């Protein structure tokens, strides 16, 4: 077409590209030279153990939900490498701003399993958790934590603290203006923040192609003036390497980075969802072949870093840990109703003290 040709003759004034990172093939073989940390066997095993714990914990949580002992719950099935890989590259003093599906990161950072259960069991005390005190709680309104991440990173920069904010959200979240506005601001001030989009290809029933026309989510960063990279989100080594690189760069004052982690949500969106309504078993089956835990296991076994016995012992350990947490969760009585007024303000205004009283059943009018 003439006009198209005309356009093609115009000078190019800016170019951008998106790169892709992967080390481990689905069968556990190696696609390219591994990053330095991969020589640390203990780290690799720790990553593996953590993903496994998450998977078993998820399974238990769903069972609790099915038997009426937990509220709606969102599993990480198939996506374990993303949140675990990211968290493993963070320092304690960094700040995590997760979405509701990032249990893997919370657990890595020290949040107790029973605290996570408390939250999904409908108890705010789950948010007053044992992880780093400045970490944000789960964010339910999709993408709305991204501006917080920019604000946190701005505080770090202002105070000249070598800390990094890490914000994780889904592919659906990348459609929200919140995320775009936050990224654009982070670009302007070269803030120490890393944005991670977990592209599990579905936002509940909405497939990626209805979410955006972009061929990669990584290119969203072009609109914010910094670099985006696409990472195989089922390869925990790639996740860890990409996160390490991005977090280090951010810490060194080199500004924000964006990571697209391509994975797949093997389970339902949450326990309230029935994914069979909107996607085929074939698609899910195919993606099972890519999943991150088997992949790392193959690699570790191949490297003689992991054995069948290790696997059995790990399963036993994890189950024990999960069961103990469940017990503590179930043994935690609800807080008294009137505590819903606690922490409403630093000091409860007089105006509401009467309501608190009423709730406490102390109607001493």
């Amino acid at each position, binding site marked *: 077409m003439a006009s198209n040709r005309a356009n093609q003759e115009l000078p190019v004034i800016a170019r951008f590209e998106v790169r892709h990172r992967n080390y481990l093939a689905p069968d556990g073989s190696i696609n390219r030279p591994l990053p330095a940390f991969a020589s640390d066997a203990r780290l690799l095993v720790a990553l593996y153990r953590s993903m496994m714990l998450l998977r078993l914990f998820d399974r238990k949580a769903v069972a609790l939900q099915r038997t009426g002992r937990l509220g709606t719950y969102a599993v990480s099935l198939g996506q374990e490498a993303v949140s675990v890989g990211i968290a493993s590259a963070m320092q304690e003093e960094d700040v995590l701003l997760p979405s509701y599906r990032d249990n893997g990161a919370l657990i890595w950072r020290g949040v107790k399993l029973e605290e996570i259960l408390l939250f999904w069991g409908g108890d705010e005390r789950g948010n007053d958790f044992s992880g780093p005190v400045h970490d944000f709680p789960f964010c339910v309104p999709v993408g709305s934590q991204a501006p917080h991440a920019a604000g946190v990173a701005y505080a770090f920069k202002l105070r000249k603290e070598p800390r990094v904010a890490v914000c994780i959200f889904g592919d659906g979240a990348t459609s929200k*203006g919140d995320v775009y506005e936050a990224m654009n601001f982070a670009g302007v001030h070269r803030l120490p923040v890393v944005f991670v989009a977990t592209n599990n290809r579905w936002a509940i029933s909405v497939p990626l192609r*209805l979410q955006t026309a972009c061929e990669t989510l990584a290119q969203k960063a072009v609109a914010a003036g910094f670099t985006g990279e696409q990472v195989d989100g089922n390869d925990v080594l790639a996740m860890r390497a990409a996160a390490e690189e991005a977090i280090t760069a951010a810490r060194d004052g080199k500004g924000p980075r964006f990571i697209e982690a391509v994975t797949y949500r093997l389970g339902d969106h949450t326990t309230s969802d029935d994914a069979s309504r909107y996607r085929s078993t074939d698609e899910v089956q195919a993606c099972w072949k890519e999943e991150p835990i088997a992949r790392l296991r193959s690699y570790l076994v191949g490297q003689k870093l992991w054995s069948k016995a290790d696997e059995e012992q790990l399963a036993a350990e994890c189950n024990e840990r999960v069961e103990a947490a469940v017990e503590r969760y179930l043994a935690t009585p609800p807080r008294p109703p009137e505590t*819903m007024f606690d922490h409403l303000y630093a000091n409860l205004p007089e*105006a509401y003290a009467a309501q608190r009283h009423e709730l406490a059943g102390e109607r001493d009018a």
Partner: protein
Amino acid sequence: MPRNAMSLRESAMPEMTLVEALNLALARAMADDPSVVVLGEDVGLNGGVFRATVGLEKRFGSERVLDTPLAELLISGLCVGMAAQGLKPVGEIQFMGFIYPCLDQLVNHASRMRNRTQGRLTCPMVLRAPHGAGIRAPEHHSESTEAMLAHIPGLRVVMPSSPESAYGLLLAAIRDPDPVVFLEPTRLYRAAKGEVEDNGEALPLDHAFVLREGRDITMISWGAALKETAAAADALSAEGILAEVVDLATLKPYDEETILSSVAKTGRCLIVHEAARTGGFGAEIAATVAEHGLSSLLAPVTRVTGYDTIIPMARLEQHYMPSVERIVTAGRKMCQFS
């Protein structure tokens, strides 16, 4: 449907749930008028997270039943643009807790498109969202902030409380030439059942419905809280207190006349809503009675509401919402007042 004939009670005939009634109304509206378009997150193949739009995509195609990207501001803004072009968009916001990004579009555009262009462009859109607690949903899924919306001139705010009113009011909202926010009671989606005839008849907007006639006290409520309000009226009647139950149904603009005439008859005005008390829409009703019905009052106007705190998550939500007991206690006290 006659004005006083609606009821939350069960009927002897085959019934449907409130959410099924909504689905029926949507299907009817789409079949009647090719300009009706449904859009939102998961409204297509999945039929909506509450199944309100189930079957619509299959029947009317994915161009008219449209899964949007995850962006509520976008959904509301698309509706404004579509409506200005003569479509009749019905947007779905998955939970009321996610409606806030729409407020800019609702306040600055939807509600004033007609007025600011002196009628040249209009905005016949509906924005649907489930409101309220009680289904043990996660954080941010239990909001009842209708008062924020009912303050916006140019907007209509409609809140059905039964399958019958859901059907008739949704048809009315879609046919209305102006923007309507339509808030549906989450915990009644499946719990409320009633017989609904798919006769295509809309209910009037800006009309309050007297669900039950009474003598001693007027109990005004809307949306999900009508369930407890009606139950409280039952309980009070067992004590000999005859309560008149009014379903406000349309909050903006609302039917002052029905309220004032009921209060003139009973002399007592009890308002029940699930939203936090301070600045809730109950204040507006109380203010109207204090301005125009003062002389008939035999007891102070009373509000039984959600507490003035963040609505707690599942473990405490039942303590937050107005209970039958709290309503009965308040009503009893008002009737003892002299």
